[in-house]
């Protein structure tokens, strides 16, 4: 096996593990809230059995909180399912906006832990590319991880996917601390292997506090 494939395999496995752990943590939180609210309903029932009047409004509140968490859990599972299926095919047509949105969702908890907001410009049009969806998501994650570390005091990373003459690109902007990031530390071996596999380019504009990931129409 070539060194590139070794790096891609190792990086991909780490990425999959990191996302799976984060998803499971999110689901645990959802279950914990459902558990407490169901427990509260049980408490109210026990109190009613002992003759205490039951307030229908409280029951309604508990039921709506449980339903809210079920919707949240369902959204998490849908994202997890899309993420898991991204490894199904080595090459397929994808909308760069969708891939970016999925990665923003999956990275939400990591962003929140760092006090950073990920803001994606609402797509006005589809940005189709033929790519390896899993490798693409892995590369977007590594760039997001780096970008979050360069967000600076603004604590926001602005993201935009768009069509270009030669293919498509993702812009990461408002990286206020980009100029202070150690030169040569990014892109590293993992990012370089992914960029090569996807025939993509990463251009860092320290003066503009931006970086751009560019893709050919087909990788």
């Amino acid at each position, binding site marked *: 096996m070539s060194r590139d494939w070794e790096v891609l395999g190792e990086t991909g496995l780490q990425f999959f593990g990191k996302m799976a*752990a984060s998803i*499971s*943590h*999110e689901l*645990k*939180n959802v*279950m*914990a*809230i*459902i*558990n*407490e*609210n169901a*427990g*509260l309903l049980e*408490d109210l029932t026990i*109190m009613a059995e002992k003759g205490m009047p039951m307030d229908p409004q409280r029951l309604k509140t*508990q039921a709506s*909180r449980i339903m*809210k*968490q079920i919707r949240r859990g369902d959204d998490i599972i849908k994202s997890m399912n899309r993420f898991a299926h991204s490894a199904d095919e080595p090459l397929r047509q994808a909308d760069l906006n969708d891939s970016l949105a999925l990665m923003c969702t999956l990275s939400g908890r990591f962003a*929140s*832990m*760092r*006090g950073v907001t990920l803001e994606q410009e609402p797509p006005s049009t589809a940005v189709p590319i033929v790519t390896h969806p899993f490798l693409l998501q892995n590369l977007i994650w590594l760039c997001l991880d780096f970008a979050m570390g360069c967000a600076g005091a603004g604590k926001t990373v602005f993201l935009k996917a768009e069509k270009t003459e030669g293919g498509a690109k993702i812009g990461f902007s408002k990286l206020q601390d980009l100029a202070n990031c150690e030169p040569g530390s990014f892109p590293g071996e993992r990012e370089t292997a992914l960029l090569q596999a996807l025939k993509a380019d990463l251009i860092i504009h320290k003066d503009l506090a931006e970086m751009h990931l560019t893709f050919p129409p087909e990788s």
Partner: protein
Amino acid sequence: MSEKVLLVDDEQDFLEAMATRMKDRGMEVSTTTSAADALKKVEEGAYDAVVLDLMMPEMDGLEVLKAMKEKRPELQIILLTGYATVQKGVEAMKFGAMDFIEKPADLKVLTEKIHQASAQKMVLVEKKIQEKVKRLIQEKGW
């Protein structure tokens, strides 16, 4: 005597439901979703137990734990988390956590741990008072 508990978690809906259930069981409960606010609360008030989420935005739960123990060494802290690993548990205990519980928690188990925390804190506070009195007696030569 009712136990005074501080609940710290970034999930507001979790805090509200858990706090209501604990209050229904006779505990005096304060809540916060912010690690910084939790540290402030610990400095200002004497709690029998703190139930702390390990994954807090902007500040790692273990850092919060360390900071709380520095401010109040007698404080009994129970860590609550969505993911419990042996390594994290060992680290938490090393930094002085009283216990480590995985979410979703069984309220009966948590309540029992809070009772234990309260008793443990009382022992530590009494010991501290005894040492203070002993030191005073020695200093004054009584």
